[in-house]
């Protein structure tokens, strides 16, 4: 049996999400709007590389992020996302984007949770495997 592979659309879709900016509203403690500005999805991080692994091809996605002098390489394996890996499905109950398929949206959430919200100085490793933790409950 061959290795599981990602569909080709995941790279351009995920890149577009990661390199996007979005309007962010800032509020004071009294709830009043103080500022509105465009904030990058990556915030304090920068995308250095996003592509399939040169050796493993479409079975692994490699995402290299840099921030405050720190470089983190995130690897994403197709075998960890067997039901979404084609990047052709849209699940309206959790994917509200008009333009992106489930895998790209889900990976953007996981990258945000596991890397982007963290201070680069607090990340102790330079390699992170992006996947659903094994302890997540199933319905």
């Amino acid at each position, binding site marked *: 049996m061959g290795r599981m592979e990602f569909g080709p659309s995941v790279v351009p879709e995920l890149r*577009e*999400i990661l390199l*996007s900016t*979005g*309007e*962010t*509203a*800032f*509020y004071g*403690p009294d*709830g009043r709007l103080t500022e509105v500005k465009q*904030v990058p*999805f990556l915030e304090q991080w920068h995308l250095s590389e996003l592509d399939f692994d040169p050796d493993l091809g479409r079975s692994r996605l490699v995402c290299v992020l840099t921030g405050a002098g720190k470089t983190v390489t995130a690897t994403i394996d197709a075998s960890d996302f067997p039901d979404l890996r084609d990047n052709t499905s849209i*699940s*309206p*109950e*959790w*994917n*509200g*984007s*008009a*333009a*992106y398929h*489930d895998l*790209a*949206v*889900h990976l*953007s*959430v996981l990258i*945000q*949770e596991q890397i982007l*919200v*963290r201070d680069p100085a607090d990340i102790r490793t330079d390699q992170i495997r992006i996947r*659903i*933790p094994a*302890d*997540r*409950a*199933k*319905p």
Partner: protein
Amino acid sequence: MPVTAGASAWYVASAPVIAATPGCGKGANVRKVVATYKAKKHDAGGYRTDTLYCGNIRYGYRHLEPHIGQYFGGWASFSFAMAQTLKAPATIGVQPNGNYKETAPIYQCFYAGYYVIWTFIVIPEISSGAIVTAYGSKGKTVHESCP
């Protein structure tokens, strides 16, 4: 005669009444509602209602469950932080993946005279208000009594 109000007279809970455990064990329906939250609207005055479903590994309680142990105080504290963040956010960002990113500072105060500033983050789907995920990010410790 002086009138002293009991705590229940002036304290209005900001978080919903929640069960000690959300009841999202094996077999619970993905669309079972765990809690609803009053959420400040991004582009208008007033509030909307955001919903936390049991969900699955992609969204909802089952997705965010591992983050509860990374925060302090268990599920009750986590749900309270979600409620505060959605009701009175410091920021609401519109993301191209169809989600809001809402943040607020949460102060964890200690009697010993210091506090820890957490940034709490809630990610609801823009169109439906279904909560995709939430988590706390521990920030600096301030060696002064809570403000």
